[in-house]
């Protein structure tokens, strides 16, 4: 579904993403982990096409990631929810539905805003919403088109416990529907039981790309070890 080959992204002379390669198959739920400044957000933004790659290739369902065909196959939920101040919650979903040509949009949108407790806020302007509410709207906008690939950058920051649980449930449902999800997060316990595989980035490089079981086996730990322990182990400075 997603194939990243030898991707490099530089900001002037700083190499933010350094020759990374990975691929996601249909139905994969993959966690993109790493300390601050590891290059996770840059990687996702480059896949989305917000940033220009310096080298390498990114294909989504065999199309170049910036092509219109590829863009129909994915949605993106950014780290900071930036919405249109003067559009209401409902109008945001309407706008996304028009942009992605979503069929039966009203029904799907209603279901989503109910799941995220936004029903009473649906006629509120985005500028009147709290940061957490905006994040919920942003997630709903990402979920509405029901694409094959979902790219989430820190989706749970600012969410209340119920919404975090709802998001986790949605991830599970997406997995059951054979959708592909790449999720970058620091809330390791929230994705621990959801991800089939984790990619750990450090200083722009992928230092770990394996399943949870492989990781545990490699580190020689028992079943009781958490994702947090594994993360701290692999990212600790030599």
């Amino acid at each position, binding site marked *: 579904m997603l194939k990243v080959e030898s991707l490099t992204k530089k900001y002037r002379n700083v190499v933010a993403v350094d020759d990374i390669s990975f691929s996601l198959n249909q139905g994969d739920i993959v966690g993109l982990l790493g300390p601050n400044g590891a290059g996770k957000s840059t990687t996702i933004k480059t896949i989305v096409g*917000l940033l*220009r790659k310096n080298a390498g290739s990114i294909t989504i369902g065999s199309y170049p990631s910036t092509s219109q065909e590829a863009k129909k196959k994915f949605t993106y939920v950014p780290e900071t929810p930036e919405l249109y101040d003067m*559009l209401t919650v409902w109008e945001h979903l309407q*706008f996304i539905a028009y*942009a992605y*040509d979503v069929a039966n949009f009203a029904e799907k949108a209603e279901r989503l805003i109910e799941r995220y407790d936004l029903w009473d806020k649906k006629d509120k302007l985005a500028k009147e919403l709290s940061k957490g509410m905006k994040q919920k709207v942003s997630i709903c906008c990402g979920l509405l088109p029901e694409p094959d690939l979902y790219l989430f950058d820190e989706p749970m920051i600012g969410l209340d416990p119920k919404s975090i649980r709802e998001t986790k449930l949605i991830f599970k449902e997406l997995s059951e529907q054979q959708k592909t999800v790449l999720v970058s997060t620091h809330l390791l316990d929230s994705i621990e039981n959801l991800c089939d595989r984790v990619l750990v980035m450090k200083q722009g490089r992928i230092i770990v790309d394996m399943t949870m079981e492989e990781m545990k086996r490699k580190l020689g730990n028992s079943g009781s070890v958490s994702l947090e322990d594994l993360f701290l182990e692999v990212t600790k400075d030599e």
Partner: protein
Amino acid sequence: MNEFKLLAKRDGRIIVNHFKEIRSNPKRLGIYLLYLVWIGSLVFNVVLRYRNPVEIQAQLGSQIIGAGFVGVGTAFLLYFLYRGTLESSTFFTMGDVHLLFPAPVSPQKVLLYSMVKQSLLHIFLYGFLILALMPLIMNTSRIDLQYLPFMYLGFIGLFLVIAPLNFLVFALGSKYGLQLRLQQGIFALIVIFILYLAGFIIAAGDLWQGLLQGLNASWLDYLPVIGWSKVVFMTAVTGYSIYSIAGLVLQLLFLVCCIVISYYTADDYYEDTLKATEQRALRKKQKAGVEKAQRFSFPFSKKKLFVRKVGSGPWALFWRSKVEYSRSDFHPYLGFWTIMFLLAGIGVGVFAGKQTDGLTPLYIVNGVIAYIIFIFSASNAAQHELTKPYIFLIPGSNLVKIIGSNLTDILRMFANILALNIPLGILLNAPLQIIMILVIFDVSFYILNLSSNFLIRIIFPNALDQKALYPLFLMLQMLLLLLPGIIVGGVLAFVFQNLVLIFAGIAAVNIIIIGVLLLLSNKVFARLEWI
């Protein structure tokens, strides 16, 4: 859905929501009415000037306007062309970046729609600017009102091409690696322009005469953008000719060409516009008082810094601002503006010293500076301090918190005013006590506004309301804060006919008002909320 239809629908909803918001919050209508009053006063001024035309040599007036247009316009154009080699202009919001850019819509169509939309918006917005400039133009020359639309179109014609041209320069520069070449070309144009003017000044043997001749040379009318706009703009001053229409058509064609070339070359521009879009969003927040406005300072970034402790409790706020200034400038109290004020003091002193023997220039400069300081300090650092929680959380006296958060700004302003007045005073042979009275006079206007900011925050806690009601605040501040000083100054002027006493009187009244405001702020501090 078709991209243009999608974007038009979105903008249609945004416009409808603006109207709905006004309906649900009629307070905003008051603000728009204030703007209407302002526009009305501009129109009234224009009518007044038209009915009472100034007696000015017709040719000289038109030369001044033509030279002003070409001089300022060329400087603007070259500046934005140069900026285009460093960063792109933007037509987008952060909402576009996160919702529209990742969507399956054509980036080229999004760009085309956004460029045209911004151009249409600017046609309307720059109209206010020309309206505001009209009294100045009519003070300089007679204009034919029937050709006012030409003046308007010539003026906006210049501004409309700037953003697409800037975008195009950046797009071409980054796409074909031409940034350096473009920069060299722009520098060459600047050098040619300066040499061209220098030639005229030397030939005329007089600065102003040379500038007037150089900037009004007829061949300039054939230059793209600046020349064509000038021909259209000057129609109302010099009269209509076939060139007026030709200039208008050429300018329009140029704009269309810029947009069309941008459309065909910019297929991968999202990253290019990110920085400018983020900065635009930041400026919006700064205007609303949510983010701190960036000060103009030297681009230093001292990593290692030691700033001595200045006290505990609320004095930590004073220490914090000292650290910030130390990092961005070469000294916590001295900076870029100190040098500018010093240069201005020396420049005016040398120039005025040759023209007059009295102290009148010293009084005029300080009067103007006090007015500018008052206007520009109406929303200041203290506003920003209130958007952070520390001023509320740090234990200590409220009065010290207010003083602590403003002290560095006040000391810096004090240093700037000293830098202006000491060389100016020395060059004009002014006694030291007069210089000190004028320094206190200027700084008192600065503190006056800083001390009133806390009260404004109590009356209108919402940052957006504060932004929207800014003109109203300015009027209120002018009335309530300036009036007492002006009355006392007027009385002193009438009784003693002594300029120094007027300045001293106004400064004394200002200091009394500052004291009252500080005591009031101290009282109301407990009612402040951190939003």
